[in-house]
């Protein structure tokens, strides 16, 4: 009886979480004249996908989003990991201050700096340019990366770092050969978080891009709406397509997390 209740609860939670996604998927496969119907579709069609991928520069947007998110993630991960390692394991004056600032910066409401950022990016000549997105994204992703990763580096016992130093490593060698592999789960987690937040970002992308050349997925989908009708089928199809790279990235970094769980430095 209790098992049955538990199973039911699990099914409900799963439905609650996947429901919107499944609805989206169903909508993307409906024939156009049944888009607003609540019944099951009379037939399934890939027409919406065809029109999104051929009728609009949507593939370009997916590529843009992927490039921007990857570059942001890679840059933030590299500088974030080195900074977090230094803050967690090296003797640095004011570590708490730096970490506090990182936390503050990563929680800063982005909307407050849209206009100054717009002016800065325009002054740099990066408006409507992918780099003009990577730069502001990194300023938000990097503090978050430092904050999350410093926790993971702190969790690695000091004696392991000292052992590496005693064994002849320079601090950077100890970082690269010992600390970084041991922080892999943290890197994986952080990478997924950074990639998703950059992938989903709408506000700056809307403000800082003006053409399909540099438009990212959320903005592209947002601009699907015409004057007279909402292309629900296409929006649904585009959303489904936009989800795929994120799932792919999550699967890739998941392996780091899993690999880390089997080699964790904690209780040996």
């Amino acid at each position, binding site marked *: 009886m209790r098992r049955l209740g538990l199973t039911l609860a699990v099914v409900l939670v799963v439905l609650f979480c996947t429901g919107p996604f499944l609805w989206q998927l169903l909508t993307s496969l409906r024939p156009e004249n049944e888009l607003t119907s609540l019944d099951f579709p009379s037939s399934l069609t890939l027409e919406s996908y065809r029109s999104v991928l051929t009728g609009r520069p949507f593939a370009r947007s997916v590529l843009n989003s992927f490039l921007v998110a990857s570059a942001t993630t890679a840059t933030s991960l590299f500088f974030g990991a080195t900074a977090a390692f230094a803050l967690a394991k090296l003797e640095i004056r004011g570590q708490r201050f730096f970490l506090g600032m990182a936390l503050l910066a990563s929680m800063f409401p982005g909307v407050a700096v849209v206009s100054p950022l717009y002016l800065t990016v325009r002054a740099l000549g990066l408006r409507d340019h992918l780099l003009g997105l990577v730069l502001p994204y990194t300023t938000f992703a990097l503090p978050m990366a430092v904050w999350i990763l410093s926790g993971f580096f702190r969790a690695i016992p000091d004696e392991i770092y*000292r*052992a590496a*130093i*005693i064994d*002849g*490593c320079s601090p950077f060698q100890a970082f690269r*050969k010992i600390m970084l592999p*041991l922080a892999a789960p943290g890197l994986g987690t952080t990478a997924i978080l950074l990639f998703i937040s950059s992938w989903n970002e709408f506000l700056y992308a809307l403000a800082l891009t003006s053409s399909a050349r540099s438009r990212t997925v959320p903005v592209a989908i947002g601009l699907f709406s015409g004057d007279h009708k909402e292309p629900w089928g296409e929006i649904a199809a585009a959303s489904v397509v936009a989800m795929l790279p994120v799932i792919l990235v999550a699967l890739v970094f998941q392996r780091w997390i899993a690999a880390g769980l089997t*080699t964790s430095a904690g209780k*040996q």
Partner: protein
Amino acid sequence: MISVRLARIEKSFTRGAPVLQDINLEVPAGAFVTLVGPSGCGKSTILNLVAGFERPTSGEIFFDDEIVNDRSPKDRGAAMVFQSYALYPHLDVYRNIAFPLEVANVGRAEIDARVREIAARLEIDRFLARRPRDLSGGQRQRVALGRALVRRTKLCLFDEPLSNLDPSLREHMRAELKRLHEEGDSTYLYVTHDQIEALTMSDQIVVLEGGVVQQIAPPREVYERPANTFVAGFIGSPRINLVRPATLRIPPELTGGRAPIVGIRPEDIAIGGGPPPEGTIPGRVYVAESMGAETLVTLEIAGERVTGRAPADFLPRSGEVGWARLNLARAHFFDPLTTKRIER
């Protein structure tokens, strides 16, 4: 081999009392020197100073005749075995042991030969392909030893390396460590809170308490002629009896008329039951503990407890009458004010 010398070392951290005060000690080249003391006595801090993880507040550290205060741990070239072993969890046993050689850019063939040699010596050659997490505590401890010894450094530092092992394994590794020291030619500086490790393995013992050196001497001397009541109480098991002279009916002419603290070890007190024979001190049995080969009996005499030895078949109940016969020639006297040893 290298000698290590600490001269007038002081260490205090930004907050709080000094951790080390006026530490002067010499570790002769090739010696096995043990720093022993209760937790918080500063022994690990001394090891960290020698390793280079921390800097002294004042004073000099010499390796042979060179001051190494400003040298990084890497450039001091010492090997170290940590209490937690600090193995690299993501590397297998082979790569753990090979790691310091790889960092030093030693050739592949030589690395292989040296790793296999030390692994065979430590009897861990069957586990070379395993990860640390798949090893028992004793095996991990051997891997940690292997990683330190494979480098053939002139100086090896040990930070309580045996304290996480179970007692029988610890006993075995004590003997192994002593052998390894005799076989190799490096200087060992060893930190422990276990006085038995200090007594069994070292050439010299440094007893520390409260950041101050209490005594530096070979194990026999620390045991036979403890410099003060702290050393007397810390070294030796079962613990030395520290009592008033009147309790043991020590004649005043023996103590020069003063009333010092008397220290007498349980092996210098014979205990028996029944009516006290001539020249013994009567008391009541507080507790008797059978040790197998003998019985340790604690008597209550004049309000103080005195532990001595009795034959294995003497197993009195608490409260029974007993007596103690002292070997006063082996008693130690300590000044009650300074707690320092009084020579006689």
